[in-house]
């Protein structure tokens, strides 16, 4: 999957406009990245990549790029 498509999915997960999200953004700086978005992210990984992520792995994600790294089949 292209990085562009991944960013699109992440924007959807956080209900952001696609142009408001870039790989270098720090998650704690994104107002929309909260516990509810995290649940949506976990659901999206499952739907799109058939993958489950552990709470520990998710906690270690600090940037948008870290989330994108998890988005592999």
């Amino acid at each position, binding site marked *: 999957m292209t990085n562009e498509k991944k960013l699109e999915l992440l924007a*959807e997960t956080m*209900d*952001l*406009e696609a142009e408001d999200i870039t790989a270098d953004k720090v998650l704690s700086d994104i107002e929309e990245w909260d516990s509810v978005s995290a649940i949506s992210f976990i659901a999206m990984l499952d739907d799109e990549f058939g993958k489950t992520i552990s709470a520990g792995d998710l906690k270690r994600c600090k940037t948008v790029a870290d989330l994108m790294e998890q988005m592999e089949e």
Partner: protein
Amino acid sequence: MKNPMDLSNKYILITGASSGIGKATAIYCAELGAKVVLMGRNTEKLLETKKLLPGEDHQFFAMDFRTLLGNSVRRDYLSELFGQITAGDRKLDGFVHCAGIASVMPLKSLTIERLHEVMSVNFYSFIEMTRNYLKKKNSNDGSSIIGISSVLAVRPREYELAYVASKAAMDAAVPVIAMESAKRRIRVNCIAPGSVNTEMAANMAREYKNQNFQEKQKKQSIFGWQQPEDIAKVCAFLLSDASRAFTAQVLRPDGGYR
């Protein structure tokens, strides 16, 4: 003169718009100045409704929730459809879910397929449409979502399990959606009519094969049968700024159901 129910320049999506309450709501909203997007099963009937709308720029899309949410759900279909509706950065100001089918079926014959069909049109579609509506790119803050429920959700009749359950599910879901969309001040409410003079009610009377159905239903309510226009007016109220303080409610324009 001030019109508190003015819908000028509001962009409203209405399902079930080919007949009954949906059709009446589309007409009434357009009369109040709204631009309307009609959705329904039957293209010809949608076209008929569209012809009755004053003003320009109304659109319609044929859509059958039975096939959409049946056994093979096309996940991306609705998001593509919303993409068309909101093309050119035009966001919606309201969504009224009038799509619904009645079903008279004793429990012993209520197969999971029949139950699923009614739940798909009456309830799953409401949730799936609402989910898409609530994406920021599709709707404005402060807008309004309405589900057409039924008095039967709280005053059930025998042999209508699927219908009753689908409407009760809607009543139960609305406060949850209201809480989740509060941050954007999007209001979410149900309207639960009693007996309304629609094609659906006429078909129902036929299914019951009961001459007294009309008469019995009339006696059930102080004002007797309601007209689709009576419900359309309550929809317009909930879509307008006049109802700013209403969310997570079930409004009951049932003529005093007893």
